[in-house]
């Protein structure tokens, strides 16, 4: 598994969906749950898979005919890295909000 060069908010959304689900998720459901366009989610899934964070497989035999759906899930190492990446992202993006709140409280006390 290789680390990602950059983790965008869209990447975090995709990682959250995969972490929340915990099992194999159809790519279209990842798109739906993130609320991001396919043009954003498809490349992210491809990048995550290329880096070894995510593995994909064809859906098991179903009664539905036609092309098979591709299912995505975090690898063992990928799940750990994803939890860490999401936590770092949230901490980084909550820090400014906390700082503003602290400043406001300090201002009101003074």
């Amino acid at each position: 598994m290789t680390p990602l060069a950059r983790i965008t908010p869209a990447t975090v959304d995709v990682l959250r969906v995969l972490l929340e689900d915990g099992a194999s998720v159809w790519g279209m459901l990842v798109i739906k749950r993130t609320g991001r366009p396919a043009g954003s989610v498809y490349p992210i899934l491809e990048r995550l898979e290329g880096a070894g964070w995510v593995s994909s497989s064809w859906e098991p035999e179903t009664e539905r005919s036609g092309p098979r759906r591709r299912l995505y899930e975090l690898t063992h190492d990928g799940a750990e890295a994803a939890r860490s990446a999401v936590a770092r992202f949230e901490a980084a993006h909550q820090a400014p909000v906390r700082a503003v709140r602290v400043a406001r409280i300090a201002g009101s006390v003074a």
Partner: protein
Amino acid sequence: MLRLLALFLPPLARMRYLEEWRADAAGAADAGLSRRSVVLGAAVLSFTLDRDLPAHTGEPRGMLPRRRARRGLALLCAAGVILSGAILTGGGIVPEGVAATAGVVALFKGAAWVVVRVAVLIAVLGAVYLIGAVRTAATRTARATLVAAAVGPAAVVAGVLVPGAPWWLAPVGFLVVLLGLVGGVAVLGGTRPIGLAHRRAPRRTRITAAALGALGVIAVVVVGGIDMLIWNPLAKVPGMELQTIYATMVSRDGFNIGANVGAVMVWAGIWIALAVLVVGFAALRDGRALTPRRLAILMLGFVGGAVFFRFFAGFGYGMSIADTFGTNGGDASIVSATLPYLGQFALAAAAVAFGWAPRAEPRPAAAV
């Protein structure tokens, strides 16, 4: 539409993503999404896909940018050789003399026009390959090469083809192309070392290819030699017999026939000897690495070298004819006008053959 987009993917990724997209499009309504969003997503992915991913190439990472850079450099070298030839021959030699009818002259002028455009096109194609290389390499050096590879040939094209373009545009473009070449070399050098495939060819194949190549070299040398000794003097001084031409050169200019014929013989002997040596080496067990492609590079290089050094072997003739008969010192026969193109394209073909080394057989990713 999805099938068309899949064509832009590496072969090993094509079937997987096509089936995935088709399944997504078929089930888009189940997920409350539109088929259009799938097509847009597929379009973005087909453009942004990591083409150097081992699962997509069947090769170790780094092979794709290396191959693209090698091909891009080869094409730029080929274009450089052809354009240099055009500059050295003053835009192409135009035949003179009895055989140079209006039709022949027009043909050669047209060929010179076409050759320069072909060279520029080859340069642009080389830039495209380098751009592809840096897209997959994605290092700072590679990005600098990307700019040089895109801007250099564009400046040359604009400088050569656009009427009224400033005179310095094409030379600056060449300079930028050179910087691109340096960048390309740096990209190649920076790529992680990868074991070379030790390619070999059977003895029969080697001997056949080497013999054919040597025959080509000998044919060019023989024709080029006869041209220097007979056809070109006749074309320079139309209406005069060869013996008279030589006798006049000796009497008026002190032309040394023995030394100048000797120079032509030495020139011919060197290139024929090199070609024969390669044939001999190809027949040996130690020559197993001489695959047909490598032999072609060598033999095409000999053809290009022979044509280039023919200028020096025939220099004494040109000068003496010019001094004796008051003509210019340039070549005049149809063969003399044709051989430079042959030499330029032989060297260009050698460069391209060097760039197009066969790739290792891709290993498909595990079918999961």
